[in-house]
């Protein structure tokens, strides 16, 4: 990884972007997700049944990363919102790569989220591979982990993402 810019080397192995409780977990928002994917799991919908299983309705666990995405617009914010997985875009831009895609994802799920919760998410760059020829042109792969915690510090989950970046930004 000797060909990496120094700032990318400096990002490796530590939290670089921290998204701290930017959205409140709300049932109305997770209902939109259930509707989109057609998920009728009663734990997300049915109060009597979820009381027995999970004490109260829970947010679909696969939505965990969505609770660490800033609102796209806010009335009192001067700067643009952070992009979804901001660290990924920082890596892509620092390497002069035009396009990036997620190719593999792993989600390890712990404490479920409920209405009124929020998460703190730490984005950590784990690895950047050597430049290579890909099906979409010259590119590279890199790995980012995101650690999600609830306000009490308990672990909500860990997301590991494998990216493919391709195409050079014109000089």
């Amino acid at each position, binding site marked *: 990884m000797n060909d990496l810019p120094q700032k990318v080397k400096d990002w490796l192995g530590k939290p670089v972007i921290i998204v701290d409780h930017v959205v409140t977990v709300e049932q109305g928002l997770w209902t939109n997700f259930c509707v989109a994917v*057609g998920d009728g799991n009663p*734990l997300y919908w049915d109060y009597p049944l979820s009381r027995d299983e999970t004490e109260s309705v829970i947010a679909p666990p696969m939505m965990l990363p969505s609770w660490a995405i800033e609102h796209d617009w806010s009335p009192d914010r001067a700067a643009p919102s952070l992009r*979804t997985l901001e660290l990924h875009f920082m890596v892509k831009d620092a390497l002069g790569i035009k396009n990036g895609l997620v190719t593999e994802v792993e989600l390890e799920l712990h404490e479920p989220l409920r209405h009124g919760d929020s998460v703190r998410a730490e984005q950590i760059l784990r690895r950047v591979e050597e430049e290579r020829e890909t099906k979409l042109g010259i590119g590279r792969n890199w790995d980012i982990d995101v650690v999600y915690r609830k306000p009490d510090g308990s672990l909500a989950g860990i997301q590991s993402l494998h990216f493919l970046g391709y195409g050079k930004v014109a000089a």
Partner: protein
Amino acid sequence: MTTLLKPHIGMRLPELALPLTRKLIIMGAAATRDWQPQHHDPAWAKEAGLPDIIMNNYTQAGLISRFVTDWSGPMGRIGRLRFAMRRPICPGGTATFNGMVVDVTAEQQAMIWAEIDIEIMVEKKTVTTATVKMALPATARSPSPWHCPAVKWHP
């Protein structure tokens, strides 16, 4: 009362066939709060070398979760999901979800863990492969995995 599911290696999940509409892809991206243009802007996607807008990974995760918990019922608690997106999922055609139990552990903390391999195909081509690790009650009298204390939850 939910019927106890007793998974075994080789057990197949009921197939799910899902029309891939532009609405599903855009609605999934919006509901997961993902406004990256490749998930809603066809012109931008084509400029980036993609055939059309593509389904985002959060929507794929949600569909895989739905596919597995439709089979397990609400007592099935997913501890780990790993998936590889081999081809982009674009509007058009039908996505077919197939899954099979490939491993079942012995009882631990009144739970068993089932490992399920999943393949999503569109027009006979594999677009995504996934593995889900799910906890289920070991017996009809076992507590739900959702009651497992955090210190004993090791997905």
